[in-house]
């Protein structure tokens, strides 16, 4: 038997971390360099009006200026704090709600369409209502963020539970699991991929909703976030600053994906042997 076992299994080959880092980082960085170089070449050769098509150097200068007077750091820390806190609240609310919906069919039938509808509804649509309810305060921002993120998290979890193979539940029952043991040790871990996809989308919706809320709701007791920075650039007709801020928003999204979600997802897929053909 041992001989056959040896023949039928292959040792898992794991590439070293630095190799994986280079493979993952190099292509996007190269692309970025090429794009910026092309942009710079365009400004140098075509000489467009700098107020309509600022070059990379103008954008960098605008960002540097915002950094020097502290607006950039303030905006990033304010927005990140709100985004992360809002997302965590959404997880705390969405997870039990999703579990309840997944395990209790009548509630799912009743509430499911509404949750799916909310997921499609752009959460910016809530901004005017939120301003009327909560005024220009942080509550407005958080309300919009939660309305954006919670439906995605709930839907992800419900879909994850729905995709648990019935055979796994059957095995749990045969092994003598109680209802609670079945949920905690079999169904929930099996639903993890769907849940994680929901969390990822939930974060994306949080971040988008936050930016929208910060752009629209400006002033009052609302702090100064990245969206506010963007709005300020627009008021001053400072295109370099506007483009720079867009790049900052984009960069934060990419960094969170690379540092938080990608490693968690990769680890989970690898543990389950779901990496497929990707190295």
């Amino acid at each position: 038997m041992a001989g056959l076992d040896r023949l039928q299994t292959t040792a898992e080959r794991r590439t070293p971390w630095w190799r994986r880092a280079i493979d993952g980082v190099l292509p996007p960085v190269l692309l970025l360099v090429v794009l910026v170089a092309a942009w710079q070449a365009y400004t140098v050769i075509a000489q467009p009006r700098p107020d309509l098509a600022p070059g990379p150097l103008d954008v960098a200068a605008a960002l540097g200026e915002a950094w020097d007077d502290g607006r950039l750091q303030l905006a990033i820390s304010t927005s990140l704090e709100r985004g992360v806190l809002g997302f965590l609240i959404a997880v705390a609310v969405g997870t039990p709600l999703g579990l309840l919906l997944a395990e209790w069919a009548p509630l799912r039938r009743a509430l499911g369409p509404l949750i799916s509808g909310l997921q499609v509804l752009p959460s910016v649509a809530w901004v005017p209502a939120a301003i009327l309810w909560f005024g220009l305060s942080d509550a407005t921002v958080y309300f919009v963020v939660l309305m954006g993120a919670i439906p995605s998290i709930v839907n992800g979890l419900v879909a994850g539970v729905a995709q648990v193979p019935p055979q796994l539940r059957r095995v749990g029952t045969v092994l003598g699991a109680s209802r609670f043991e079945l949920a905690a040790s079999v169904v929930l871990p099996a639903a993890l991929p769907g849940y994680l996809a929901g969390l990822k989308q939930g974060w994306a919706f949080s971040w988008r909703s936050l930016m929208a809320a910060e752009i629209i709701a400006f002033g009052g007791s609302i702090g100064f976030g990245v969206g506010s920075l963007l709005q300020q650039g627009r008021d001053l007709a400072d295109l370099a600053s506007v483009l720079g801020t867009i790049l900052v928003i984009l960069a934060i999204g990419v960094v969170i994906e690379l540092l938080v979600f990608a490693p968690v997802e990769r680890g989970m897929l690898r543990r389950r042997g779901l990496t497929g053909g990707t190295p």
Partner: protein
Amino acid sequence: MTAAPAIRLTGVGKQYAADGPVVLDGIDLSVAPGEFACLLGASGCGKSTLLSLIAGLEQPSTGTIEVDGRAAVMFQEASLLPWLSARRNVELALRFGDAGLARPARRARALELLDLVHLADAADKRPHELSGGMRQRVALARALAQDRSVLLMDEPFAALDAITRDLLHEELERVWRETGRTIVFVTHNVREAARLGQRVLLMSSRPGRIVNEWRIADDGPRRIESPTVSELSVEITEHLRREIRRNAA
């Protein structure tokens, strides 16, 4: 046999809907403690349903089923939890329900059982790192972990290649002799039934009934290519074909 049977079925019938087809009809069967019984039949004859009834996963429409304690079950797919290592999968059976062992005891017992199926070296591997045959042996260890006297097996080797299956027959027979379990083994493979069972029960289709049975003198392990197995296979196949022809008419 004087001892009380490990499994006793009396007049068991199964019908999923009142106007639906009769899946099982008038099954009388008793399996002695420590016996290895093979339930043989064509696809769709209701042998898996019968096993589900004995396992208590479904209720019979008529008749009674008595099982000595509850039964452990092994399916055609290993159905291991893909996020747990082989050892943790076996430990699961030691943690759930009435088993409830403490963690160190679970760990030790799981390793012992994996050693029994010659998988001690693979204890920390996850299911996707194991071959199909190894996964089935982990499933066997997990079924044994439940420490129930009756083990029900629903075509557990059907998805494996012939070489692996042949070796697993030896493993299963050894484990059976070492642990003294009562085994009911469902299969549609005549040779497999003749190779493994002390008793082979032939089922007819629609309605599922036990139509014939063979007892095989247990004079130690026999090989699938041995004359005894071949002769018995020929005889059983004849009966099986007759049953199938009867359905065509």
